[in-house]
C-alpha cells in the first residue's frame, strides 16, 4: 500500500445531566422550540452562568476511566463569534487548561488490539439550533439545546484506517454509556464526531495537511465519510494538487464530502478566561469520591470473562458492548464452569441478541431474564433437551409461558436419552426402512441421514441426536 491514512477524532458527548451546564433549564430532548431556555440560555442582559457540578463529576468520571490526568485547576474560556443560535455571542468552553489531559482507549480491529491516545477532554456548552425551513425565507432559532453540557474528547492522530476510527468511536460510545455520563443517542445528537483526516506517502514522517469532517452522527457515516475523503485526498495529490486545510461536511445522500470553509476564513475566536466563572478546582477528596463510584470498566470485564469462562477476546468484546449486557452475562454465567459460560455467551450473542434486535429492545427490556437463560442453558448442558429443542423452549420463555423446566414438562419436550428406549425406536425404523439400510450398506452416506431423520421423527424430536447417531452406526455396522 502506497498511502498511509492518518485520522484523529474529536467527539462531542452530551453529558447526561438533568439541567444545563450553566443554568437550571431542562436538557430533555424533543420539547417545543424555546420552551427549555431560561434567561441564562437566551442571554438576557445581566444574567450569569453557574457551573453544574453534575457535568464536572461526569467529566472527572471520564478522565479517570481513560486513565487521564484530572487537572486540579482548569479554566473556562470564552470563544467569541457571532451566530444567531449562539445567544451570548460567545461559547463558554475550556481552552488552555482543560479538565482532563491524556488518557488512552483500547480498540480492536479483527484480531488486532490498538491503543488510541487521547489529547484532552474539556467541558463546554452546546449552541442552539437554526431552523432554516418553515419560516418563509427567515430563519427560526430554537434555543432548547443552548447550554446543554458537552464533553469534547480529542484524540491524537493515532488511527490509520476508517475501520480503526469506527472501532475507536464505538469503544468510546460504549465507555461513555458504561460510566453513565452520556446516553449515547446518536439520532438525537448526544454523541457526534468530527474526523480530522490526512494522507501521506508510506514512510513519510511529516503529517499531511488535514481536512476536518464535521458532525458525523452515525458510525456508518463516519466510515463512509472517511473512506470518501481519503480517496479524494489521494486523488488530489496524485493529480499534483495540494490539500488545503479546510472544514468539510459529509452529505449522506451523495456519500461525498464538500468544503464548508478554508483556514483563510477561519474565525479569530479571541479566547480569554471567562471572568464570570472562577477557575474550576478539583480537590483530591472529590477525585477519590468519584473514583470510588466508578464501575468496573469494559477492559477489565473483558479480561475477567476471558480468564473465568475461557471466552475468546472476540466473544468478550461482544459481551461488553454495554454494562447491562456484561451484567446480564455475568448473572447468567455466575458460578458456572467454562462450558456453561461459553453456552451462555453463545446464547446471548446468538438467539437473544437476534430477538432483541428484531423487536428493537435493549438488554434491559429482554423478556428472557438472565436467570431464565441460565436455567435453559443448564437443561442443555445436562442433556435434558437438545440445542434444537432449546430454541423452542427459548421462544416459549420469551412468549411468557414460564421457565425452562415448566415448558419442557408442559410440552413433553424431555429429550430421550434412555438407550433402551432409543434402541427400540431404532429397531423399528430399521425394520421398516429396508431400502435405506440397503442403500447405506451400498455406500450411500445420504441414506444414514435419512435414517436419523426417521428416528427423530418417530421420537417426535425428543431423541438425543448424538445417541441416535451412535446407536444407528453400531446397529448398521453389526
Amino acid at each position, binding site marked *: 500500500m502506497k498511502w498511509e491514512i492518518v485520522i484523529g477524532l474529536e467527539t462531542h458527548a452530551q453529558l447526561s445531566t438533568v439541567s444545563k451546564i450553566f443554568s437550571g433549564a431542562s436538557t430533555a430532548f424533543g420539547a417545543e422550540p424555546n420552551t427549555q431556555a431560561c434567561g441564562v440560555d437566551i442571554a438576557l*442582559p445581566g444574567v*450569569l*452562568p*453557574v457551573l453544574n457540578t453534575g457535568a464536572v463529576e461526569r467529566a472527572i468520571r471520564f478522565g479517570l476511566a481513560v486513565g487521564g490526568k484530572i487537572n486540579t485547576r482548569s479554566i473556562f474560556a470564552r470563544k*467569541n463569534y*457571532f451566530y*444567531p443560535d449562539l445567544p451570548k*455571542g460567545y461559547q463558554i468552553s475550556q481552552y488552555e487548561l482543560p479538565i482532563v489531559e491524556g488518557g488512552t482507549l483500547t480498540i480492536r480491529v479483527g484480531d488486532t488490539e490498538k491503543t488510541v491516545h487521547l489529547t484532552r477532554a474539556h467541558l463546554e456548552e452546546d449552541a442552539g439550533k437554526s431552523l432554516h425551513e418553515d419560516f418563509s425565507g427567515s430563519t427560526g432559532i430554537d434555543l432548547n439545546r443552548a447550554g446543554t453540557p458537552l464533553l469534547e474528547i480529542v484524540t491524537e492522530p493515532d488511527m490509520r484506517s476508517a475501520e480503526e476510527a469506527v472501532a475507536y468511536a464505538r469503544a468510546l460510545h460504549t465507555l461513555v454509556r458504561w460510566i453513565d455520563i452520556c446516553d449515547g443517542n446518536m439520532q438525537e445528537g448526544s454523541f457526534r464526531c468530527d474526523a480530522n483526516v490526512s494522507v501521506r506517502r508510506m514512510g513519510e514522517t511529516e503529517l499531511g495537511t488535514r481536512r476536518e469532517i464535521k458532525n458525523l452522527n452515525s458510525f456508518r457515516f463516519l466510515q463512509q465519510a472517511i473512506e470518501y475523503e481519503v480517496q479524494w485526498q489521494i486523488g488530489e495529490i496524485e493529480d499534483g494538487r495540494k490539500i488545503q486545510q479546510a472544514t468539510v461536511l459529509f452529505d449522506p445522500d451523495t456519500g461525498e464530502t464538500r468544503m464548508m470553509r478554508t483556514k483563510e476564513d477561519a474565525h479569530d475566536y*479571541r479566547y480569554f478566561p471567562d471572568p464570570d466563572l472562577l477557575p474550576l478546582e478539583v480537590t483530591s477528596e472529590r477525585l477519590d469520591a468519584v473514583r470510588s463510584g466508578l464501575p468496573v470498566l469494559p477492559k477489565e470485564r473483558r479480561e475477567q470473562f476471558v480468564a473465568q469462562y475461557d471466552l475468546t477476546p472476540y466473544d468478550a468484546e461482544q459481551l461488553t458492548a454495554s454494562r447491562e449486557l456484561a451484567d446480564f452475562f455475568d448473572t447468567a454465567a455466575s458460578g458456572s464452569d467454562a462450558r456453561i459460560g461459553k453456552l451462555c455467551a453463545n446464547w446471548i450473542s446468538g438467539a437473544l441478541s437476534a430477538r432483541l434486535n428484531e423487536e428493537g429492545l435493549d438488554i434491559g427490556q429482554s423478556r428472557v431474564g438472565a436467570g431464565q437463560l441460565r436455567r435453559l442453558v443448564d437443561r442443555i448442558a445436562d442433556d435434558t433437551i437438545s440445542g434444537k429443542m432449546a430454541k423452542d423452549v427459548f421462544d416459549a420463555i420469551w412468549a411468557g409461558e414460564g421457565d425452562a423446566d415448566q415448558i419442557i414438562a408442559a410440552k413433553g419436550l424431555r429429550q430421550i436419552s434412555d438407550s433402551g428406549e432409543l434402541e427400540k425406536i431404532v429397531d423399528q425404523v430399521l425394520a421398516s426402512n429396508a431400502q435405506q439400510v440397503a442403500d447405506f450398506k451400498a455406500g450411500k452416506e445420504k441414506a444414514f441421514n435419512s435414517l436419523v431423520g426417521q428416528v427423530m421423527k418417530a421420537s417426535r424430536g425428543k431423541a438425543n441426536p448424538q445417541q441416535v447417531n451412535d446407536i444407528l452406526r453400531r446397529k448398521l455396522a453389526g
Partner: protein
Amino acid sequence: MSNATLKELSANLAAGACSSVELSHEFINKINNLNKSLGCFITVDAERTLVQARAADARRAAGSAGPLTGVPLAHKDIFCADGWLTTCGSRMLSNFVAPYDAHVVQRCNDAGMVTLGKTNMDEFAMGSSNETSYFGPVRNPWNLETVPGGSSGGSAAAVAARLAPAATGTDTGGSIRQPAALTGICGLKPTYGLVSRYGMIAFASSLDQAGPMARTAEDLGLLLNVMAGHDPRDSTSLERPAEDYNRDLARPVAGLRIGLPKEFFATGLTPDVQRAVEAAITEYKKLGATLVDISLPNMELSVPVYYVLAPAEASSNLSRFDGVRYGHRAAEYTDLMDMYKRSRAEGFGAEVKRRILIGTYVLSHGYYDAYYIHAQKLRRLIAQDFTKAFKQCDVIMGPTSPTTAFRLGEKSADPVQMYLSDIYTIAVNLAGLPGMSIPCGFDGSSLPVGLQIIGNYFDEARMLNVAHQYQLVTDWHQRTPPGVK
C-alpha cells in the same frame, strides 16, 4: 421630608409621622418638577411606585416592617427590574422591558423599599460625565452647565438634588465614587464579590461592583446592609456571614493610621481639590489619627491597564446585543451579517463602539499576549502595592477625582482626558478593594470636592466608621445645591 436622610425617613415611617405613599408622592412630584432640567431619570412610573408604597404601608400596618420598609430609592438603569424599562443608557436597549429583578433590586424590594424610577447613566456605564447616554446628559445640580460625573451620574444627581434619598450605582473604574464626589454626596464601591452582579448588565465583569449612593456614610451602611449578601446565581459572589456595616460607626478614630500615597498628590491634581482634601486629612489628625506616607508605585499604570482589560471584557459582554432576540434591530437589512452590522451600528453610541473596538483588538490573535496577558500581570502588581500599603496603614485617603465637575462638552472630544478623570479610582477596582467618596469641601466655583477613602478587603464597616466620624464634626454632606430645597 425630601431633605431627610434614610435614617430619618426610617424613623419617621416607624413613628407613623408619614406613610410610604405620602413620601413617594412627594418624591414623584419633585422628580416631575425637576427631571426636565436635570435629566436624572430615564424612567419614572408613578403607578408602579405607588403599588410598592401601598404594599410597604400594609406591611408596616401588619407589623412586619424592616428598617427601610417604605423608604423610596432610585435604581441605576443598569439593574434589571421586573416590568421596568431597563435601557442601560443605550439605544440598543431603549425598548427592553426586563422580565426579572436583579439581585440588588430583589433585595431592596424584599426589604420593602420603594422604587422611584430608573436613573440615567453613561451608555453601558462607559463614561465619566454621563454625556454618553442615549437619553441625553444629566446636569449637575450644583451648576447646570457642568456634568455630574459618571457613569452613575443620574443616581448621583438625583440624590444631590433630593429627588431620591438614596440610589443604587455601579462602579467599574470609579462610576460610583467620581459622580458622588462631583455632586457632593457619598458613594461606596464595596469589595468585589460582596454584592451580587446578577441582573446588573455587565460592562467589565471582573471589575463591576454595585454599591449604595446616599447623603451620609450612615445611610450608605443602611443601604449596603440591604444590598450585600451571597447569591448563588453569581459565581463571583462571596459566601460570607451577614454583617451590620454600621456596627462600628461610633468607634473613635484616634489611633487610626491613614496612608497617604504620594502618587495621589502629584501632578494633575487641581489646587482647589488638593486644598480641600488636605484640610479633611488635617481634620482627621485633629481627631487623633496618624498620617503615614505610603507609595503605590504601579498606580500610574492603572489607567492603561484598565483600558486594556475593561474593553476586552466589554467587547465580549456586549456581543449578546445583536438584535436577534431583544433590543434594537435595524429596520432594514439584506442578510444576517448586514442585520448585525446595522443593528449594532445604530444601537451603540461612539464611546461604546470605541471600547468594543479596543477590546476586540487587544484580544485578537497576535496581540493577546502583548496586551491582555501583560495587563493581567500588571493588574496583579497594582493589587500587590495595596497589600503592601495596608501593612503600614488602616485606610488610604486621597482625592476621588483630580478635578471638580467640568463643563458639559469640555472633555467629550478628548477620550484620554476623560479617562484621566478616574485616575485615582481605577486602581481600587483592579485590586478588588472597597473604596468610597464623601464630600469634603468646595472649590472656588462652589463645586463640591470628594475625599476618597480606600479600605482593605471587607473593611467596609471600618471605612463607614471613619467617614461617619468625619461627618460628625463637619457639615459638607449637609450642604444643599442652590435652588434645591
